[in-house]
């Protein structure tokens, strides 16, 4: 295990999650930031670095009265915040700043103070995908799966099993949106959205936000909270259009990001006690488990169906209930990080006993981008 260079010393979500019609997207960022500052026992005066997505960094900085000397506006969809964490650690190590605030806020459901949908569509997407009847992530992110199913024999019941396993975690989490126990049959009886995906295989659409405060590992002691250390991190890009994904059964961005993050952290798969895999749709934990190397290609559907990622399983995964059951404002990566931090602090609603290493893996732009962080409770 490598010696960590940075630590998370503040972490919080918005006071409310779910349906928040009384707060604009900008204020979701700020509400989360104020909660994270309070969590860390810091004030905006202590912050000299700012990173965010959705909104522009100057907006967040000005709202909070911060004059940052380091800024990161990387915006590659839902894994942006995991990249921000990685970049912040490097910037702190390079001496560009000492204390970084990372914010996310998204009025995904109520659409308060939000411009028109901007998925960072490129002109290539407008010319060569959009004219063929695509209408957003449920009609695009899902396209690889039939090829995966034919290649490996994954069944619709196994795809539904992902949602069943995550509902078991959500049942343990009072802040989760969907908590009632469910079954494969119930998932397979929900409304068809884009064959083979049914409504309950697709993420929630909610409002919320989250924020993190990052500083150097050696400055993380004697803080308001137990520090959570960043052991290693990585990121990767593959393509701007799902139609140009190299292999529909495996994400290159996942493989590259996951490999480098674990290598940089100096940990093996056997060291990992807890895993978060961004689940906008039910196939993502399947791709994530395989592409990060936790199981072999084609094995993840059965692995999940056997309960091995569910409560009591050997690899507790998406323990907040995930984007399928906890919340999903459109860009879920921040919530995956928050659950990783809670697990490493020992404060999660569905706490994994004795967990010391957590891997948080995110996706952005529908397999276009990926980022991975390896967190630890030990510095």
């Amino acid at each position: 295990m490598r010696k960590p260079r940075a630590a998370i010393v503040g972490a919080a979500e918005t006071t409310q999650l779910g349906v928040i019609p009384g707060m604009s997207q900008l204020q979701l960022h700020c509400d989360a930031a104020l909660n994270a500052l309070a969590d860390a026992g810091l004030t905006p005066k202590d912050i000299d670095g700012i990173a965010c997505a959705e909104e522009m960094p100057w907006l967040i900085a000005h709202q909070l009265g911060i004059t940052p000397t380091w800024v990161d506006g990387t915006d590659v969809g839902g894994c942006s915040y995991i990249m921000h964490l990685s970049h912040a650690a490097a910037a702190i190590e390079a001496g560009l700043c000492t204390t970084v605030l990372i914010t996310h806020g998204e009025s995904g459901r109520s659409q308060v103070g939000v411009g028109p949908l901007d998925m960072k569509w490129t002109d290539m997407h407008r010319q060569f995908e959009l004219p063929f009847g695509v209408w957003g992530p449920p009609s695009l992110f899902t396209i690889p799966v039939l090829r995966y199913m034919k290649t490996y024999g994954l069944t619709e019941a196994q795809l539904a099993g992902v949602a069943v396993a995550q509902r078991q975690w959500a049942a343990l989490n009072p802040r989760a949106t969907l908590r009632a126990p469910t079954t494969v049959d119930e998932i397979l009886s929900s409304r068809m959205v884009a064959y083979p995906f049914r409504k309950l295989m697709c993420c929630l659409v909610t409002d919320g936000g989250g924020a993190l405060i990052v500083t150097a590992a050696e400055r993380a002691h004697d803080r308001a909270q137990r520090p959570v250390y960043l052991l290693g991190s990585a990121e990767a890009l593959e393509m701007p259009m799902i139609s140009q994904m190299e292999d529909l059964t495996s994400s290159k961005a996942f493989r590259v990001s996951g490999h480098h993050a674990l290598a940089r952290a100096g940990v093996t798969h056997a060291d990992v006690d807890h895993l978060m895999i961004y689940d906008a749709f039910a196939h993502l934990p399947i791709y994530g488990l395989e592409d990060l190397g936790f199981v072999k290609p084609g094995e993840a559907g059965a692995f999940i169906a056997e309960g091995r990622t569910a409560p009591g399983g050997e690899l507790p995964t998406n323990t907040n209930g995930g984007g399928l059951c906890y919340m999903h404002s459109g860009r879920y990566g921040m919530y995956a990080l928050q659950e990783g931090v809670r697990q490493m602090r020992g404060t999660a609603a569905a706490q994994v006993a004795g967990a010391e290493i957590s891997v948080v893996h995110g996706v952005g732009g529908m397999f276009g981008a990926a980022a991975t962080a390896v967190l630890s409770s030990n510095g």
Partner: protein
Amino acid sequence: MSEPVVPVPTPETRHFWEGTAAGELRLQRCDDCSKAYFPPRPFCPACASRRVSVFKSSGRARLHSYVISHRNAPGFTAPYAIALVELEEGPRMMSNIVDCPQTPEALRLDMPLAATFRQVSDTIWLPQFKPTEI
């Protein structure tokens, strides 16, 4: 049913859209390494050579993957398939499968397809694909 989204060609993609209007599927190939590629760009994605040529694809393809949308979109009434086809020359592209029931039973992965063209504006024709055997 509203009209579908109509592509707006750029200097780098004009050959493609002029091709579909002429009933041809036009791809590009590298003169140095022979890589055939799509979507259009004025250099080779495999070796970065600027020596590339436009050529006419056979239009033959196989169904690589798809979803069947159960929600309408501009120009499309559900259920309809949003499909990825793999062209005989190698590149893949997003398209639709026409002259075929939009059902999992009829839409078999790897089924052979042939290009066809659908006019969506005065100047733009979209490439679509139809099964070539039952």
